[in-house]
């Protein structure tokens, strides 16, 4: 069946380009068809607009750059209006994976937001409701929605979530973060240049507050052992040191920008602390993290 579809698309493209045929991209073949919902009392007031990585900029200006770093694939936007001249805009951003969707969602999520049980997770503020579900990040905003604002946004959100069809889950690695002292909903996924270093690429992190101490824990999932080794070597180089024989274990990096960073490399994970100067507490948290990662396995 799928092959037939490729063939049909291929023939069509050949027709369109009048003989200049070349292989089709199949990247959208597994894309689910999303339809915007019908909501009683509201009608779509314009056409559905679609934006891709090269055109997202037309829609959200400078904000687009951040979405692009999270492997943004496509945005569909539609606006609804009612007889009271209120309007609701729904933006459905599709990212490459649910982790990327979580990444951009977590970048925009305020940890003290009013969370609602929609999709994987969502929150509502005045005139705004944002949630994520699988690879989708959905942003719903209302204008002139008056005192019924919350109810209206929730109605739309539930219907959109239903049409998206997948509730999804938060990245499973987040369960490895030690609970003690963790600031609720502070977890983030940074897709590029973690800590301001391109060689560390992506990481999950969370904020902690314990006995007046504010710090971060993070975990990186390198592709393999060689990459892990390279990361530690390059990080050491930043401080003017040379680490030739890098093996699994702990490393203390006197980072010129972030202070002392303690890293622990084991297997497929590299985890560590930022902004925690107490060696005992550091050690305790690295151990707790290790236990969390083991439980996840």
């Amino acid at each position, binding site marked *: 069946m799928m092959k037939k579809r490729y063939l049909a698309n291929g023939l069509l493209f050949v027709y369109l380009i009048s003989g200049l045929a070349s292989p089709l991209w199949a990247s959208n073949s597994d894309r689910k068809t999303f339809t915007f919902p019908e909501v009683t009392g509201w009608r779509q007031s314009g056409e559905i607009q679609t934006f891709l990585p090269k055109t997202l900029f037309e829609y959200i*200006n400078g904000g687009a750059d951040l979405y692009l770093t999270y492997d943004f694939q496509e945005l569909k936007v539609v606006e609804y209006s009612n007889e009271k001249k209120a309007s609701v805009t729904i933006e459905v951003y599709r990212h490459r994976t649910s982790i990327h969707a979580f990444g951009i969602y977590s*970048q925009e999520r305020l940890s003290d937001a009013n969370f609602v049980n929609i999709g994987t997770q969502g929150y509502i503020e005045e005139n705004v409701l944002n949630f994520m579900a699988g690879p989708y990040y959905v942003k719903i905003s209302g204008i002139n929605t008056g005192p019924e604002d919350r109810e209206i946004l929730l109605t739309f959100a539930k219907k959109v979530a239903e049409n998206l069809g997948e509730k999804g889950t938060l990245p499973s690695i987040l369960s490895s973060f030690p609970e003690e002292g963790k600031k609720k909903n502070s977890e983030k996924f940074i897709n*590029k240049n973690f800590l301001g270093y391109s060689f560390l690429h992506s990481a999950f992190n969370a904020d902690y507050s314990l006995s007046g101490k504010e710090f971060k824990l993070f975990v990186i999932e390198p592709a393999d052992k060689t990459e892990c080794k390279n990361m530690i070597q390059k990080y050491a180089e930043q401080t003017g040191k040379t680490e030739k024989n890098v093996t699994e274990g702990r490393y203390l990096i006197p980072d010129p920008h972030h202070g002392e960073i303690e890293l622990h490399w084991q297997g497929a994970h590299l985890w560590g602390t930022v902004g925690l100067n107490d060696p005992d507490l550091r050690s305790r948290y690295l151990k707790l993290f290790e236990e969390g990662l083991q439980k996840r396995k």
Partner: protein
Amino acid sequence: MSTADGGRKGRSMRKKLIGRRDFIKSTLAGFGGLFFLPSIDKKQEMKIAEAKGKERKFVYRTLGKTGLKIPAINMGVMLTDNPNLIREALDSGVLLLDTAHAYMGGRNEEVIGGVIKGRPRESYFIGSKVNLPQDRTTGLYMEGATTEEFLKKLDLSLKRLGVDYVDILYQHGITRKESVAFEPVLKAFDKAKKDGKIRFTGISTHGNEPEVIHAATDSKAYDVILTAYNFKQKHYGEVRNAIAKASQAGIGIVGMKAIRGGYQQPPTVRNITASLKWILQDPNVHTIVPGFTTFEQMEIDLSVMEDLTLTEPEKIELQKEASIRGSYCQGCRQCLGQCLEGLPIPDLMRAYMYTYDYRNLPLAQDLVLTLNVPSRVCEDCGQCPVKCSIGFDVSRKIRDVARLREVPTEFIG
């Protein structure tokens, strides 16, 4: 679309055609010798900043009538929530942090707030932006775009930043001259200035920049313009002319999209250093705000101020890169108003791009169907009056992509 543009078609056609002639003139001149401006004034103000025992040379320029003396390179914060990177930039001599109410859903301003807490208020400048609901097709403000909403957002931005005022407040992402003098925003600016919540008014533009810049200059309502400006813009000559006029009127000019962002994924240029130098050759650009996200990028960007002179190899590289013909609609919107049928040409060019560059037929068809173009599109005009600024044969592309309407949706899948 055709209704909105129909009434002023004739007048706008004449205007657009004049604009087109100017455009060709400036573009030809650009490639004929003005792609590179004459060597910049060597007597620019320079200072040596010292950070962590390291000396760094900074070129200073004055941001128009604001009188702010700032480095030629500052920081666009929008892509990072790394407080230590922002802190390092300030400690290295950067003075202006560029952010927006909408970046990271407000977290960007919060992160900056955390960094500047405890620093003397006069030791840095903040430029932020507030946006109001806009019709994405026309670029015009919609219902809900009110003075109150603008001021409410400003207050929230101040709270997030933890400051009593921002130095520059821009209205964010303007593409139409009609929005430049939008009364509710101008009223909000007046009130915010009177209340001491902003020092200077600004406007930011990423599309149709020349029109916006000229309108902002004529309106006399703005102290600063933040504009996309780079050597890869097909209409850089027009942007340059508009900037020159604005600068002569005393408006401070902040450049953006010099190296990254825009219509392509970052980085958009091969030689970042040369690209930064290119924009700073223009003495009417007072500063730029590249969005670095690593310490290494920051080093590269700031080191450009060591010597702004473009070397011969850099010039050759830039010229080579600029000469690569773009296959994408640049979004200059010059075509709007030229078509007798009032067709949404930029959208149709986007559909063409989806078809032939992305090869995403469902998406292309989806777009074509929503545009409701007439059945015999581009077949009755005889000669097409549309002159695309980058030379697209617009009517041929429209006729071509419009064929997607006839293909059954289920066949495309």
